[in-house]
C-alpha cells in the first residue's frame, strides 16, 4: 500500500468515535446530542470530548436552544467539515482501489 495516501488521511476525523459522528452528520442536516449519543452508544463525556475536538477543527457547528423549556444541543456539519469528510472518503476509496488485487 502507498503510505502517502495513508498519511494524507485527516487525523482528527481518522478516529473511530469522531468518524462515526461525522458519518452520522453527513447524512442528516442536523442531529441532537441525545440522538448522536444513543445511536453511537457513547457516554455523555466521550461524545462531548469528540464534539469539542471536531468543533475546534471547524468541522461541526453546535447550536444550543430550548425545546419544551429543556435545553437542546444540536450538531451539524460545517462546509469545511463536509469538505474534509468528502476528502477523507475519497482517500479511503483510493486506498481500497490500491489494495484490490489486480
Amino acid at each position: 500500500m502507498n503510505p502517502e495516501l495513508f498519511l494524507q488521511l485527516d487525523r482528527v476525523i481518522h478516529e473511530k468515535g469522531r468518524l462515526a459522528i461525522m458519518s452520522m452528520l453527513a447524512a442528516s442536516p442536523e442531529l441532537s446530542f441525545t440522538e448522536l449519543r444513543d445511536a453511537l452508544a457513547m457516554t455523555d463525556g466521550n461524545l462531548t470530548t469528540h464534539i469539542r475536538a471536531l468543533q475546534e477543527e471547524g468541522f461541526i457547528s453546535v447550536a444550543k436552544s430550548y425545546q419544551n423549556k429543556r435545553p437542546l444541543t444540536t450538531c451539524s456539519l460545517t462546509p469545511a467539515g463536509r469538505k474534509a469528510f468528502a476528502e477523507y472518503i475519497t482517500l479511503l476509496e483510493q486506498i481500497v482501489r490500491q489494495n484490490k488485487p489486480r
Partner: protein
Amino acid sequence: MPGGKSQLEQSDFVLQSRNMNPHWAEENLQTIRTLMERSALYRRALAPIMLFVGTVGIAGGVLGWLIQAQRGGPFLARLFVFYWALVATIALAGTFILVRRQALRDSEPFWSPPTRRVTQALLPAFVVGAVCGAIAADSNGGEEGILYLVSFWCWAFGCAIHAAGFFMPRGMKVFGWVFVLIGCGICVFMTNDADSFRATNLPNFLMTVIFGGLHLAYGIYLYFTEPKNPVA
C-alpha cells in the same frame, strides 16, 4: 519537521498495526455507509400513524358495510373505488397531520430528506394502485372484478411499503411482504375457487380486515415495542 509533524506521528506507530489488515479501509467505508444510512432513516414514530390508519380502515369498513346493508346489495366497482378512495384520503390526511405534528414537536422540518425519500419510494406503487382503481371504476364491474382490484391494491400497497422500508425501520419491509402475499392469496383463491368467493360477498370485509386490521395490529405492536424517542 515536514508539515509540522513529529517523527512519531510520521511513522504511524499506532496505526501501523491497523495497516496490517489490508481490508481496514474497506471496513471503514462500510461502517461509514451503515452509519450514514442509519442517520438518514425516517425517524418519525410510526405507532400513532399505524393506529390511526388502522382505526380509519376499520371504521371505513364498518360504515361501508352499513351503507351496503341499507342499500340492500353490495357496491358496484365505481362506488367501491370512490368509497375506499375517500377512506384512503382521510387516512392520508390524518397521517400528514400526525407527521407534521411530530416534526413541529421535534423542531425539525416536515419535508426532511428522509421524508422526501420515503414519499418518493411510496409514490410509484401508489400511482399503480390509483390507476388500477380508475380502470376498475370505469368498467364498473361486479364483485369478481372488485376482488381482483382488492388483490391489486394489496400488491401495490405492499410494494410501496416495501420500497419505503429501505428508509424505515426493518419491520416495514416485512409488513409490505404481508400485503403482497395476501394479494397473491386472494388472487390464487379467486382463480381456483371463484364461486365460493363470489358467494361470500367479501370485498368490503377484506378491505376492512387487510387494510384496517393489519395496520391496527402493527400499530399495537409498535406501540409496545417502538422506542418512545426514536433515533436513527
